[in-house]
């Protein structure tokens, strides 16, 4: 009996320091993340994106400077904070990436396939113009309060579909977005997973994408975030610019309303 008690005591002693270590680990990781904030390589993408925005390109050799992102032709400032939204010219709800493709097609004369062919860089030499353009446009909404509209019937429909998709369980693992993102305090290894069903959780997550991922050496957009979540939960590939991608974005962006947009950010 004594031996058992001694063993228990030993175990307790062994556990105590590791618990302490866990607390300080979280503190140190927070310090690591804070140290990265000063000097975010996302700025390199913002710079490249701004140059691409202003450069005369495509079969029609025009710039994107007359592209209407929802606030009028050529207005970039604050535009991302009000996306996705319904665009009458396309008769469709569009997120930023889809709208950029639209402008590349209608203004610059690219085919849709050409405009969409490289949505995500490969982390090495193949860089994505869409990621750079997205970095530039989103950087022009930094500090602007999220204010995604839901006036048009199609906006409301996209939100409802997005919500359905968020809770929809499927794939080989019977997973949904909600499996990981509808409870406080969940994590994968050291990664805290935001509870996207609360305003606070949705705000914190949505307003910090796009982000420079140090693990990939790439700037990643929100469409990439959704694409990779689908891959991780063993769903079919989320098609770039699809109604499903836009609907999920609509649901999460709208839930983030009221919070100041704070990206491109930097993440591990």
């Amino acid at each position, binding site marked *: 009996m004594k031996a058992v008690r001694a063993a228990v005591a030993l175990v307790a002693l062994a556990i105590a320091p590791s618990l302490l270590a866990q607390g300080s680990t979280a503190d140190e990781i927070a310090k690591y993340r804070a140290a990265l904030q*000063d000097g975010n*390589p996302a700025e*390199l993408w913002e710079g490249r994106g701004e140059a691409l925005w202003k450069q005369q390109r495509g079969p029609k050799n025009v710039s994107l400077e007359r592209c209407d992102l929802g606030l009028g032709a050529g207005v970039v400032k604050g535009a991302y904070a009000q996306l996705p939204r319904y665009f009458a010219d396309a008769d469709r709800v569009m997120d930023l990436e889809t709208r950029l493709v639209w402008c590349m097609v209608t203004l610059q004369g690219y085919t849709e396939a050409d405009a969409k062919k490289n949505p995500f860089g490969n982390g090495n030499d193949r860089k994505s113009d869409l990621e750079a353009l997205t970095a530039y446009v989103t950087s022009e909404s930094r500090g602007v309060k999220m204010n995604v509209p839901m006036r048009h019937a199609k906006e409301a429909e996209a939100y409802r579909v997005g919500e359905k998709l968020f809770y929809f369980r499927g794939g080989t693992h019977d997973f949904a977005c909600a499996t990981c993102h509808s409870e406080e305090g969940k994590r994968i290894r050291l990664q805290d997973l935001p509870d996207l069903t609360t305003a606070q959780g949705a705000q914190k997550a949505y307003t910090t994408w796009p982000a420079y991922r140090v693990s990939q050496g790439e700037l990643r957009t929100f469409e990439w975030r959704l694409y990779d979540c689908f891959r991780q939960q063993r769903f079919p590939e989320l098609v770039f610019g699809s109604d499903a991608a836009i609907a999920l974005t609509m649901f999460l962006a709208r839930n983030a309303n009221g919070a100041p947009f704070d990206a491109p950010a930097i993440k591990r």
Partner: protein
Amino acid sequence: MADPMKIRATTLGDSTEVKVLMSHEMETGQRKDAQGQTIPAWFIQNVIVTWNGRTVLSAQWGTAVSKNPFLSFKFKGGAKGDRIAISWMDNRGDKRTDETVIA
């Protein structure tokens, strides 16, 4: 041709703070590609920072400097409008120079 650097130079009292981000793969030469072939090392070896033409920092880098390198330091002096130029050269002989003025 490498993408432009992002340089910030700001006066802080009697000194100037320089922060720069460079666009570079900084390939270590330790990684293998999908075919199992070693990806050759490709990295910035030399960096030089000048203030109105005068060297305020020079550096030699190895492959362990992170991809898309960041560097920050301060020097005494510098006034708004002064020229800061930064050049790098990599192990393939590629070079890039960018300039900014102190804000």
